[in-house]
């Protein structure tokens, strides 16, 4: 399984690079798989560049957080209206007691979770006030350095997922409308209720496991975002692009890429002109020279 290391620097998310260049370097040869993966990269190469994400079990959370901080134009309503550090006290103590942190702490687990949530809100607020891309990138470089701060933010995301799962499960029990992925989340034998979901799945995220697909839906829903994932090994199927969850309208999706549903990287938009010198939409030939065009509208 190919995992891109982020190199000797401390950066957890690399600078943007060209997808075609990356694809040709990483997937040489002409096995069926190589051809499929390269076809997938080529399908999106004119629209996106790639930022490689540190390849540990936090990568899905990290990639999503990176996109949130680098793209949010305003604080979401659910964050704006709440004092989210208080949510830690509202959480049942069983969950707090069992929480795992990836770093040493001298505070109580409750206090540390409060700190994580506070930090998330502060960083998000800081991100939305930057108007220029350069300032945002600078901020993200500072956050994604592999220090405790980065992991505190990732643990905050896990907390939000738990809180949302508890709320959704309660709604399901009451017979209220819930998003479809909830049924899948709690249909697993190992995750029939929030407690077992936490004990068997969520508390291990970042340590011994990453996020399963249905948990990506929970992550997106918790943040009120839609995560768009280009899944390269699913190229030539209807699951090549999958949305987590699929029912959040009118949102600009957070774009990620995975070759295998295991490791996630970030996709950032490539700047390109859509029109030629005469103001006509550009027609592009696919590089194979086959009769297959894409028309910009």
């Amino acid at each position, binding site marked *: 399984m190919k995992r891109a290391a982020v190199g000797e620097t401390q950066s957890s998310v690399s600078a943007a690079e060209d997808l075609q260049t990356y694809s040709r370097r990483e997937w040489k040869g002409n096995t069926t798989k190589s051809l499929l993966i390269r076809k*997938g990269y080529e*399908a999106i190469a004119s629209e996106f560049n790639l930022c490689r994400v540190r390849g540990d079990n936090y990568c899905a959370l990290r990639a999503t957080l990176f996109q949130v901080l680098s793209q949010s134009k305003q604080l979401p309503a659910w964050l704006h209206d709440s004092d989210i550090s208080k949510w830690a006290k509202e959480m049942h103590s069983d969950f707090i007691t069992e929480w795992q942190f990836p770093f040493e702490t001298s505070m109580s687990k409750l206090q540390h979770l409060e700190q994580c949530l506070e930090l998330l809100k502060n960083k998000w607020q800081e991100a939305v006030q930057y108007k220029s891309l350069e300032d945002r990138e600078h901020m993200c470089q500072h956050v994604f350095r592999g220090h405790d701060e980065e992991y505190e933010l990732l643990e905050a995301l896990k907390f939000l997922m738990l809180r949302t799962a508890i709320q959704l499960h309660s709604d399901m029990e009451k017979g209220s409308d819930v998003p479809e992925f909830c049924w899948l989340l709690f249909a697993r034998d190992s995750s029939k209720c929030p407690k077992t979901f936490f004990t068997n799945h969520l508390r291990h995220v970042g340590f011994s496991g990453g996020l399963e697909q249905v948990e990506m839906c929970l992550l997106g829903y918790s943040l009120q975002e839609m995560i768009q994932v280009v899944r390269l090994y699913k190229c*030539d199927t*209807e699951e090549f*692009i999958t949305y987590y969850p*699929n029912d959040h309208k009118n949102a600009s999706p957070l774009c990620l890429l995975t070759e295998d549903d295991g490791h996630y990287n970030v996709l950032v938009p490539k700047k390109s002109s859509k029109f030629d010198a005469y103001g006509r939409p550009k027609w592009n030939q696919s590089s194979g020279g086959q009769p297959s065009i*894409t028309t910009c*509208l």
Partner: protein
Amino acid sequence: MSFIPGQPVSAVVQRIEIHKLYEGDNLILGFSIGGGIDQDPTQNPFSEDKTDKGIYVTRVSKGGPAEVAGLRLGDKIMQVNGWDMTMVTHDQARKKLTKKNEDVVRLLVTRKSLEETVRQSMMQH
């Protein structure tokens, strides 16, 4: 969400209403299309059926009219303003989307979802 008669039960469609935007003198939609009955369907990465010569969304401009309206990368366009798009050439599709006297286009699209994939497999049991 509604069902189109003749489509397999799993194909759920979304209605997307795109309000075109002026960019200079051009009315743009903010997305790109691939496919058509005159095109090579094996190049299309979004479809499993390699005889599928339908029209697919191959790019969506960030923050553009299409994205704002809910159109997404990989969507298959079934209809535009009531016109069928499942058996058209690439150029016919382009024309239906870029009529100069229309500043709104209403699309019917299909999109696969994780939830739907699992629901399908559950329905088979």
